[in-house]
């Protein structure tokens, strides 16, 4: 029996609690993702969608993290940040998040050798 891996439903993204953080030169918000039928949505896909939504030139300045799927599935909530530039991102973002997006140096990071 062949089970269709793709679901027909599309992914909807909503942002809440939008705030412009001038001190850290970024915009931060809470992301609600609706994905009925799927387990969860990959962060790369979310970044692309956010880039189109907010007309960001460089998707490397977008970071999404701490996603939790709600009970029963179909909806997950997380946080998102959009920096003004990639240099700002490199300055303010914690190292582990930069490493996740390959923007940081994995060899340098870490105290245990």
């Amino acid at each position, binding site marked *: 029996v062949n089970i269709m891996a793709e679901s027909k439903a599309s992914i909807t993204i909503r942002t809440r609690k939008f705030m412009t953080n001038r001190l850290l030169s970024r915009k931060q918000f809470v992301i609600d993702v609706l994905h009925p039928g799927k387990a969860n949505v990959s962060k790369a896909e979310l970044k692309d969608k956010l880039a189109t939504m907010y007309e960001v030139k460089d998707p490397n300045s977008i970071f999404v993290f701490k996603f*939790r799927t709600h009970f029963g599935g179909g909806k997950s909530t997380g946080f998102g940040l959009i920096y003004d530039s990639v240099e700002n991102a490199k300055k303010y973002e914690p190292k582990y998040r930069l490493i996740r997006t390959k923007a940081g140096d994995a060899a340098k990071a870490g105290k245990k050798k």
Partner: protein
Amino acid sequence: MKAGLDAVTSKVEVLTEKVKADHFPTADGISYLEAKHLLLLNYCQSLVYYLLRKAKGLSIKGHPVVRSLVEIRLFLEKIRPIDKKLQYQIQKFTRVDTTAAEKIGSSDKEVDATQNMDDLLKLRPNPDMLESKTSAASEDATGVYRPPKFAPASMAEDKISREERNALRKEKQALRQARQSTYVRELMNDLQGRPEEVKEFVGTESRELTEYKEKLEDRARREEDLFTRAPLTKLEKKKMKHMKKSRNGLQGLTESFFDEIKTLPVEDDVGGQITGFENDVDGDRKFKRRKPKLSFALAQEALRKKKLMPWVESAMNLDATNQLPAFFCQR
């Protein structure tokens, strides 16, 4: 200034003569206060010398005066707690007028002046002030026992009688329970025009599950406010695993059963023997429900005796989910 210096020098010379002649023997050790005075004096001396060197522009690097300054400072810091402890006594002594001047001289010799306390120290316990237990109670002439009033009594302006208070509480409880029931919730959602929320669930939702979901939502709201996530403790992870286990969705089936039949005229002994009918297979005792559940067998027995309506009997003979919608429609 020269005259003052000359006077000091002559006095010091006289003293050193006396010391050399053994007029001030220190074979028994010196008292605490004397030692403290000596330390302070030495400290002042060293300070003055230090400042002198600095004023003249000489270097102080490696000079022993610096070391001695540090040492004396260290000692002074160390004796500070002793000072604090003796402070009360010393104050008492210094406050006393000149007639007790000799007493000051004598007590100086004691390092830890806890013994040989004289009447000047008033902080000791006074047994004369103790109240006897028997004297106060037996004063009442009428012979009625009146408990001693030592706790503050509140003067309630509007006294609510016990019945009224119980009735108020029952009302609040009923209101709370009604608010939680799904039917009332739907009604309220309709009236307030909220958008309809379609949730998917398997079978009937148990109260445990709805409460858990509400807790999670509350937690999520707070996390979003603060833009951080609180880490899940081991206990919380366990509970989440417990909730996510699929248990055929029949959890909530008999939850409101007891509420529905308790208004029916059933024998009283059924209420007394309430046991949990659903046991967790792996024995997570931490997550067992606190509210006692009616035992199925006992309830069956009692109702069969009373020969109640057939729909109740059919409800108890329920086996699978497909009978459920029919049963509810009949009502």
